Every structure is written in structure tokens, then in C-alpha cells.
């Protein structure tokens, strides 16, 4: 596979987030913060409903990488969380090649931009990854 800057690598749309999604992620991730699964707890801190786990969004973004590369090619994976996800959100993650470097690193590396947006185009998280091609 050859790569060039600006190339879209993957475009992944996940099923809409349901309360079941968040309950499963709560159990699987050991993140038992009630604001993700308990509407009463969410309302008690001023939210109108539960919000999704940021790390669920990042897991989806990671699937954008492992759909194209072997997991052990991922050297670095960073995400900045922009806004919370809500029940019913359909998250689409897109990964695009930013650059191909072989500069001061002994391995040839791909730098990738990853975005996670909802069905209205609102950005939920943005990330970057470094992938080794060695």
C-alpha cells in the first residue's frame, strides 16, 4: 500500500450510541462513573441526560487505525476531547494522512489525523497517530 499526504485511509460510521452501548462500555472499561449510565446522577450535576464516555469515542477512533494497520504498527495515539457524545449520536471517524516522515527517525512513519463527528457534523474529538511502516 502506498500513502500520500491528504489521503483518506478509513471512514468508519458506528451504530447510534444507545443506553445499552454505554452500559456495556461501563462494565467492560471499569469506568463506573454514574454520569454515563445513571440519568439521576447526570441530572444531579446539571446535565439533561447521561453522556457518552470520551474513551468510547477514542476506542472508535482506534478502530479507524486497526482497520488499516496491524495494531503493533501504532507507536503513538493521541486524542483531544472536544464535546461529549449523547444518546442517539451516530459517530463517524475519519483518518487522513497528514505526512510521511523518515526524517530524524530510523523508521519510516506515517502521521495521521483522526476526527470523530456526530451525524450533524459536530466534532466530538480530534486525534493524531504515528504509525510505523518499518
Amino acid at each position: 500500500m502506498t500513502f500520500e499526504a491528504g489521503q483518506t485511509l478509513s471512514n468508519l460510521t458506528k451504530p447510534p450510541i444507545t443506553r445499552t452501548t454505554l452500559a456495556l462500555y461501563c462494565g467492560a472499561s471499569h469506568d463506573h462513573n454514574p454520569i454515563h449510565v445513571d440519568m439521576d446522577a447526570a441530572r444531579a450535576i446539571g446535565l439533561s441526560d447521561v453522556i457518552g464516555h470520551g474513551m468510547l469515542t477514542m476506542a472508535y477512533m482506534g478502530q479507524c487505525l486497526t482497520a488499516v494497520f496491524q495494531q503493533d504498527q501504532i507507536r503513538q495515539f493521541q486524542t483531544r476531547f472536544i464535546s461529549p457524545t449523547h444518546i442517539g449520536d451516530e459517530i463517524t471517524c475519519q483518518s487522513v494522512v497528514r505526512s510521511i516522515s523518515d526524517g530524524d527517525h530510523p523508521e519510516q512513519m506515517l502521521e495521521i489525523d483522526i476526527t470523530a463527528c456526530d451525524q450533524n457534523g459536530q466534532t466530538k474529538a480530534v486525534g493524531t497517530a504515528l504509525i510505523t511502516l518499518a
Partner: protein
Amino acid sequence: MIDRHHIGHSCPPSTVRVEAGFLKLFAKATDEPDPIYHNEHAARAAGHRDIPAMPTYGTCLLLNNPAPTAYLEDLGVNPQSVLHAEQTFFTTGMIYAGDDITLHRKVTDIYDKKDGALEFVEWETQAVNQFGETVLTMRVKGVIRHDL
């Protein structure tokens, strides 16, 4: 405001067994299509020694702890007041079901912006497997809003 003398503070190391059942549940919860994350046989057929932990699973190891918010309470921070602003994984090896991962977490920075309205804390955790290999370094940036 958080006392800046906490910068450099190390949490007591903890060791966590990576459980296959939780890796499979994580793959189900994230609607992961690749069978290597669901099934030992598929993982071994693909050259892995067991089911791999998915790329972001490392933070779950930190949470698999009887006192998952103690690292915040140590700083006098109310866990409900912290938002997850940023997460970074530096990966140097794979984590598999059955591994015993020892986590070394420390506070790497505390600073504020907007005249103290936003306070940031950064932690770094090294994850070392049972062979003594550092397989993962995780950085997390939390933000505490004092303007609400």
C-alpha cells in the same frame, strides 16, 4: 487550587491481571469487527499469543482498581469535577489476555489558565508486563473548571 508541590508525586504501583473476559466484553461494547479481539483461536491464528488488548484498553487497567479515584483524592480533587481533556498512548509493545501489568503513575504537571478559571493536571503512567517490558506509556490531561 491544587498545591503545586504534588508535581512529581508518584502513586503506589499496582499490578492488574488482564482478563480475557473483559477484553471480549470491551470488543463487544465497542462493536469491534475483528475476530482477534473476541476469540483466542482467531488471535493465535493471526500470530498473537492470546487475545490482544485493543489500542485504548490501557486506561481500563488503571480503572480496574478498588480505589480508582484515589489518585485524584490524593490531590484534594473531587473526581466529579474533572473532565478528561486529552489522552495519549505511547505504545512499545502489545498487551495480551493473561498478562500481569504493573502500573506506575505519577503527576507530571499542574498549571492553570484564564487567571485560574481552568486548572490542568497531567499524569503519566508506565505499564510494565510480567517480562519486565514497558509496553505502554499513557498520558492523561484532566481539566478542572473553577468558573462554573
